[in-house]
């Protein structure tokens, strides 16, 4: 029965004398691939709608399936197959071959043939297909034709350059922008020979996904400022890898030359990111090449009090001695950038060497409720065992976003949600204070919520007839929800009552891996709860140690508070922005700085930072290109990648921690990422009872609205002042301009024209930024948490703070 249905969906046709059966609605160009015939093409792209713009794929069709043939060659990229159709491609038909050569000659009439200076030269479909399917000579040039020329290149954004003369008008870039990214700021202008890709003159190509157009351009018309003239395809060694800048786990390809990364391209992983990545994933790879990259271990000289270069064995010994001499407890802040293997080493180092559970990967607003939520609901979820996947996003009926702005925080999720909405009208709702452009592009609807009241808003969805969340629905909660008491409990309860499935989307690539490996005060590797004696015994047996510390440790807030009061006198820290640590407690920097100076601090960093300045021992750590490893993405999908560059100057965290542990006389048993992975597999997931879902009751109210005070809604945009984005000024120039976003009612009280600077003042201070009107909940003002040059989370206050906005001069 099933077989019959499948069979009836197949259409049989003859291509070049070979009979082939393909599913109905397959395009002829792809059916031809099935029989091994590559029809030349430029505009055709499997993930874009067919358009038939370039006409390069012409084929001869003597029988369209109805006994009659097409009188002229047809574009095979727009023609669906039909039963009994007969197709002759260039391989067998002189008609098709001549038609293709004619089209190629047309396309090359105005092409500048500047292949020697073109970045695409060597990997250019136009170059390749002109050789395989073109005439040897141009009749246009021979007859004295003069090519159309344009000044070149022009910037269509700070990062994307356009050479209009090279363009073959395939419209891949414009179709990508319109169909996939939803940023139609690039369009075909003019007609005839003057037709060209262009932008509205006052609006640059402002898209977080603009880099994809460079990659899919079949000629060298779109190039990136970062890669322009840097290299040639034959120079480059390509290594598949995984994007390390968000939790999407996007497949990328890293092209490197002589020990330097030259560019990153999107990989092709239909289950994750398809063929698209964000501009951050594509261009932000220069950070490890900055001047402040650490190249040697350093220890603080006892006599001078200054950091000096030391050998690895000396640094290991000094670190081990310092940790041994720590009279009280040790705290560990591994940060959210670790590979799963490195996170596992941190987790084991904390339990076996420091004998503490004071470890927390979260360096952002967090809560004990979040830790309980992660331990009960999130950890150990994976695509094979029922966790939400990208495919589920695409087929969901309803998606509720809470504390998550996908375009800024998880680009691949944004593209999938947009695809789902465009394809079959998936309804998307956002529990947020701001209706963003990203939400509008996914066809989403704002459920206006004042920051701080998300918990009650989420609870109310259970009985919301319009949202009608049911088993076909998904709830995506962002890490920002941890800052709102009760919100994660409410989300878990909502999932339980409606049957909708729940997924947690962190921002950093290493967050989920750190969770799975137990870099939390209440969780051990493999999702084992600290509070469960059985889990502790199980893990101690697997590790061959006497015991695991039995009391839950301190979270990041707790570690910092204890440091300030002297309750902890040693800290191991890695990949943590000191400014973030400062912003967490909201307390005086001086107090913490003094405490850190007094405490014994071991820093594991790629580049020097304020933390390495305060540290007693500094270890240079390999960035993700210099080590093999695994990221676990938000789905729980394991995304392994190999080493790209060999750089002996720095080591992975696991090797450094193993070195310290051995000096301390308490081995962690693994020294390489491969060994760590093998041990992680051996230790395995916890099969016993999970921790209970948190049931924190929302405090529910904020001070917003009263006395004209406003509540700040805020999150980090995709491109901001993050250290991982350092080094590429072109990329940073494409970051969105920071604004203070208010609704019309609030705007009317300010008395300044739109675009004028206003003063945004909060608990930490004030900044002046231009004001803009947007879809913002009453009593709320939105500003980016960070932007190039303006770090609002440090200058004004965290999301949820009570702020004031004042117009007029300062």
């Amino acid at each position, binding site marked *: 029965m099933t077989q019959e249905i499948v069979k009836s969906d197949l259409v049989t046709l003859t291509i070049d004398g070979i009979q082939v059966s393909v599913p109905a609605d397959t395009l002829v160009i792809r059916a031809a691939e099935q029989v091994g015939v590559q029809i030349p093409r430029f505009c055709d792209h499997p993930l874009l709608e067919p358009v038939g713009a370039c006409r390069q794929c012409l084929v001869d069709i003597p029988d369209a399936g109805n006994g009659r043939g097409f009188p002229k060659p047809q574009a095979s990229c727009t023609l669906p197959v039909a039963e009994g159709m007969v197709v002759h491609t260039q391989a067998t038909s002189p008609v098709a071959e001549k038609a293709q050569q004619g089209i190629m000659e047309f396309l090359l009439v105005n092409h500048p043939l500047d292949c*020697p200076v073109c970045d695409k030269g060597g990997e250019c479909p136009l170059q390749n297909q002109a050789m395989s399917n073109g005439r040897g000579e141009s009749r246009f040039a021979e007859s004295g034709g003069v090519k159309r020329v344009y*000044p*070149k*290149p022009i910037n269509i954004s700070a990062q994307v350059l356009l050479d209009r003369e090279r363009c073959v008008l395939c419209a891949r870039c414009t179709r990508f922008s319109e169909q996939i990214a939803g940023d139609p700021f690039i369009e075909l202008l003019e007609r005839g020979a003057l037709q060209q890709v262009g932008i509205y003159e006052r609006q640059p190509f402002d898209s977080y996904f603009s880099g994809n157009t460079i990659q899919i351009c079949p000629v060298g018309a779109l190039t990136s400022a970062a890669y*322009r*003239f*840097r290299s*040639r395809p*034959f*120079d480059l060694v390509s290594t598949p890898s995984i994007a390390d800048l968000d939790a999407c786990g996007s497949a990328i390809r890293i092209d490197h030359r002589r020990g330097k990364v030259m560019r990153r391209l999107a990989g092709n992983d239909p289950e994750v990111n398809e063929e698209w990545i964000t501009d951050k994933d594509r261009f932000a790879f220069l950070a490890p090449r900055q001047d402040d990259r650490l190249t040697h271990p350093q220890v603080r000289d006892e006599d001078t009090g200054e950091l000096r270069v030391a050998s690895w064995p000396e640094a290991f010994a000094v670190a081990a001695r310092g940790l041994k001499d720590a009279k009280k407890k040790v705290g560990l802040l591994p940060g959210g950038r670790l590979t799963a293997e490195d996170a596992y080493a941190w987790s084991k180092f904390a339990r076996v060497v420091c004998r503490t559970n004071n470890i927390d990967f979260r360096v952002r607003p967090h809560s004990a409720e979040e830790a309980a939520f992660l331990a009960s609901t999130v950890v150990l979820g994976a695509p094979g065992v029922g966790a939400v996947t990208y495919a589920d996003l695409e087929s969901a009926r309803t998606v509720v976003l809470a504390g998550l702005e996908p375009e800024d925080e998880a680009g691949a999720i944004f593209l999938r949600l947009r695809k789902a909405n465009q394809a079959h009208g998936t309804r998307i709702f956002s529990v947020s204070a701001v209706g963003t452009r990203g939400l509008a592009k996914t066809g989403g609807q704002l459920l206006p919520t004042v920051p701080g009241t998300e918990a009650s808003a989420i609870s109310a969805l259970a009985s919301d007839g319009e949202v009608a969340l049911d088993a076909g629905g998904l709830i995506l909660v962002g890490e920002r929800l941890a800052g709102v008491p009760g919100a994660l409990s409410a989300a878990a309860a909502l999932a339980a009552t409606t049957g909708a499935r729940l997924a947690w989307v962190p921002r950093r690539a290493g967050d989920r891996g750190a969770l799975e490996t137990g870099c939390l005060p209440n969780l051990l590797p493999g999702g084992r709860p600290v509070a469960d004696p059985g889990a502790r015994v199980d893990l101690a047996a697997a590790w061959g140690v006497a015991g695991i510390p039995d009391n839950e440790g301190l979270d990041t807030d707790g570690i910092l508070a204890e440091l300030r009061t002297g309750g902890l006198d040693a800290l191991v820290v890695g990949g943590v922005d000191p400014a973030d640590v400062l912003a967490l407690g909201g307390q005086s920097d001086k107090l913490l700085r003094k405490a850190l100076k007094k405490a014994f601090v071991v820093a594991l960093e790629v580049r020097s930072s304020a933390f390495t300045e305060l540290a007693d021992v500094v270890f240079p750590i390999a960035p993700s290109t210099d080590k093999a490893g695994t990221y676990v993405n938000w789905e729980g999908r394991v995304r392994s990648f190999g080493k790209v560059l060999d750089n002996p100057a720095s080591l992975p965290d696991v090797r450094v921690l193993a070195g310290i542990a051995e000096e301390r006389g308490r081995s962690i048993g693994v020294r390489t990422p491969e060994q760590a992975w093998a041990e992680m597999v051996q230790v395995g997931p916890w099969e016993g009872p999970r921790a209970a879902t948190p049931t924190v009751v929302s405090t529910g109210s904020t001070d917003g609205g009263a006395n004209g005070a406003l509540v700040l809604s805020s999150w980090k945009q995709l491109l901001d002042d993050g250290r991982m984005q350092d080094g590429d000024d072109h990329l940073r120039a494409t970051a969105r301009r920071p604004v203070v976003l208010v609704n019309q009612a609030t705007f009317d009280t300010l008395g300044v024209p739109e675009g004028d600077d206003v003063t945004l003042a909060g608990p930490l201070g004030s900044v002046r930024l231009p004001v803009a009107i947007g879809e913002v909940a009453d009593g709320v003002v939105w500003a980016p948490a960070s932007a190039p040059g303006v770090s609002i989370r440090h200058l004004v206050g965290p999301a949820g703070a009570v702020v004031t906005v004042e117009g007029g001069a300062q």
Partner: protein
Amino acid sequence: MGTLKEQFWDPVAGFGVTFRTMFRKVVTEQYPFEKFPTAPRFHGRHQLNRWPDGLEKCIGCELCAWACPADAIYVEGDTNTDDGADGSGRFSPGERYGRVYQINYLRCILCGLCIEACPTRALTMTNEYELADTSRESLIYEKSDLLAPLLPGMELPPHPMLLGADEGDYYRGNLHPRKAEEGDA
């Protein structure tokens, strides 16, 4: 034991060859004290040529490196800029120039495929064949070692294009002193 001829006549006959050669022209070359010119198209050390105004012909396209069967050539391209008052970043006509250009003469087999690949005739070969040295480093020739010397009338780059409105004029051989109205772009 040989015949009588072999024992007595052959040794003397050998001296006959020596004696005869004394009256012939000497073929020994007194290199390095006397140097003879090579064949005109001998494949010797490379040279990076200049346009008559001193701008480099090399556009950093790396086709020479691509063609090289011995992987002896290393090139890095970069962008010419006209920002400065004197065209501070312009080394060649057009957009692109070769910022780094190295030929490793320990690897080079002087086959000449690179000069065939060069689209601008920037790379040619001289007749110089004395390519011996005592260290590896000194046999990796940098761009400064390979560039043709400045002839009279040439100006050391960086400087603006002096002989045409754009790179097309250079490539088409339409070289003429630049007129004032031919913008700076």
